[in-house]
């Protein structure tokens, strides 16, 4: 087997939380659906059922996505730090594995493997929940909440989000890897203090807000780049309060994924590529730091 396959395997051995957390969330959601109260008002009409299904899938997706973001942040910040803290870095460095391979394997786990695990967990949880809720609302056939169109759109949405967030957040990923490879302690603090210092310093001494705007745009500007409608409210089911209306929208509550995805706009935005290049430079810096971290 390839060295990279072993390195990724290794990450799963070490960080069992990669699958334990999403599995636990899926378990809790399923329990909630099994024993919670089902508000049956949405089940009255076919549109209502569609809304219910779409909304549930979206809420589940958002929940898993939020958990994944937090976990990925922690993982990337920790991945080049723990083995320095417990000195096991010297064991890993005694093996014929380049520092480039080590850093790239962790990058792969953070940007691809973890999102896929959460994606799979979100899928499993929403399908289970749809089934459980349909069964519990006796008046309906068991497959009432099984809306293949909605579900397929959600798959497309997930895959699109995994790819585009990986690119958009690459500079943040690179930054976290640099801190993880460099800081002697307090990685969390180091991950936020320098950007804060830049923002404050700029305001105090120059009276400008370039750093703040850049960081703000990077953190919160993703949705407006990757989707072609303005995120006024949450991505919500059609007919729900606050939901934007979509011309020619299919009857299901979830706006058709292909209506809101904007890959062309995302890929043609200069911010996407400036960010990606910055991210690559930071990852290269993290590799250089890692090479020099055998002498602590």
């Amino acid at each position, binding site marked *: *087997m390839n*060295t990279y*396959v*072993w*390195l990724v*395997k*290794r990450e799963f*051995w*070490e960080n069992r939380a990669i699958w334990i957390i999403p599995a636990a969330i899926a378990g809790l959601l399923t329990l909630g659906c099994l024993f919670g109260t089902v508000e049956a008002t949405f089940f009255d009409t076919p549109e209502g059922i569609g809304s219910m299904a779409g909304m549930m899938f979206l809420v589940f997706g958002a929940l898993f996505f939020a958990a994944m973001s937090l976990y990925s942040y922690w993982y990337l910040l920790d991945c080049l730090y723990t*083995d320095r803290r*417990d*000195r*096991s*870095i*010297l*064991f*890993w*460095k*005694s*093996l*014929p*594995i*380049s*520092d480039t*391979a080590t850093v790239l394997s962790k990058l792969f786990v953070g940007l691809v493997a973890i999102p896929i695990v959460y994606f799979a967990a979100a899928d499993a949880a929403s399908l289970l929940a749809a089934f459980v809720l349909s069964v519990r609302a006796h008046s309906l056939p068991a497959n009432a909440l099984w809306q293949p169109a909605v579900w397929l759109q959600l798959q497309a949405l997930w895959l699109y989000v995994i790819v585009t967030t990986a690119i958009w957040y690459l500079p943040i990923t690179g930054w976290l890897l640099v801190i993880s490879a460099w800081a002697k302690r307090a990685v969390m603090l180091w991950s936020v203090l320098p950007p804060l210092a830049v923002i404050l310093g700029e305001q105090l001494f120059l009276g400008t807000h370039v750093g703040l705007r850049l960081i703000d745009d990077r953190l919160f500007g993703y949705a407006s780049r990757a989707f072609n409608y303005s995120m006024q409210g949450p991505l919500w089911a059609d007919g729900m309060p606050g939901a934007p209306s979509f011309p020619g929208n299919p009857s299901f509550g979830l706006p058709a994924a292909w209506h809101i995805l904007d890959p062309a706009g995302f890929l043609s935005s200069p911010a996407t590529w400036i960010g990606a290049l910055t991210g690559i430079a930071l990852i290269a810096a993290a590799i250089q730091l890692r*090479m*020099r971290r*055998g*002498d602590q």
Partner: protein
Amino acid sequence: MPAVIQARDLCKKFGSQTALDHVNFTVQPGRIVGLIGPNGAGKTTALRAVLGLTSYDGTLEVLGREPFRERAALMSEASFIADVAVLPSWLSVDHAIEFVGGVHPRFRPDRARALLAKADIAGHRLMRELSKGMKTMAHLALTMAIDARLLVLDEPTLGLDILARRGFYDALVNEYMDDTRSILITTHQVEEVEGLLTDVLFIDQGRIVLDCSMKDIAARYAAIAVTDDKLAAARAEQPFHERPMLGKRILYFERPNFERLAAFGDVSTPTVADLFVAKLSRGASA
């Protein structure tokens, strides 16, 4: 056969502090070399440079490679144990064998398993569940199952009890060493490794102060216990160090006239530890 390690004018600075100051040394195949020095002398820095763990100035060739640039390639032929506490605590023994077997072309899992079985270490256990001695044996088993041409040991027995230390070195000499391999080792327990070594390198303040084979030590150095009445005459032979011992004084000589020395008492070869103290007690005649 070409040298295993060749260092020429090896230098390393940490800020304004010089850790290695134009260090030169060579390690030949089949040798067990002890790199010995006080704390902060530059031992660990020298080893880290050899292993590609740190950048340096000067030229350094290890198994024909430049360590810092080619660490990964070098590690397929060299291996090292930094000290006892470096195996990751979350790793199980079985996974360790699986992983090293997966990434290392010269690792023989069956050999590692045989060594582990001998040390009564079960495969399902996590490293954090093992005692210090068992952890060391586990690490040693993993390392000895690698067909490496160079093994580097940095204080390998730190914190081990005397049984575990003895077991470690016995395994090293009997199971691992042969005349195609070389070992470079640093330790404070000089007495313990003295019998194993073929060569010694003393390092002090970033410089090599002695580079000598064990055979040459007997030809080059002498120690002699002198009673007070002969002290003045013996001192005329220019000892480089002396210390009191049970009412006598022990004098140490480099390249002495052995025949003349014999007149003052029994001439013996100093132990590595004594030689180390004698060499490194700067300007001291205690």
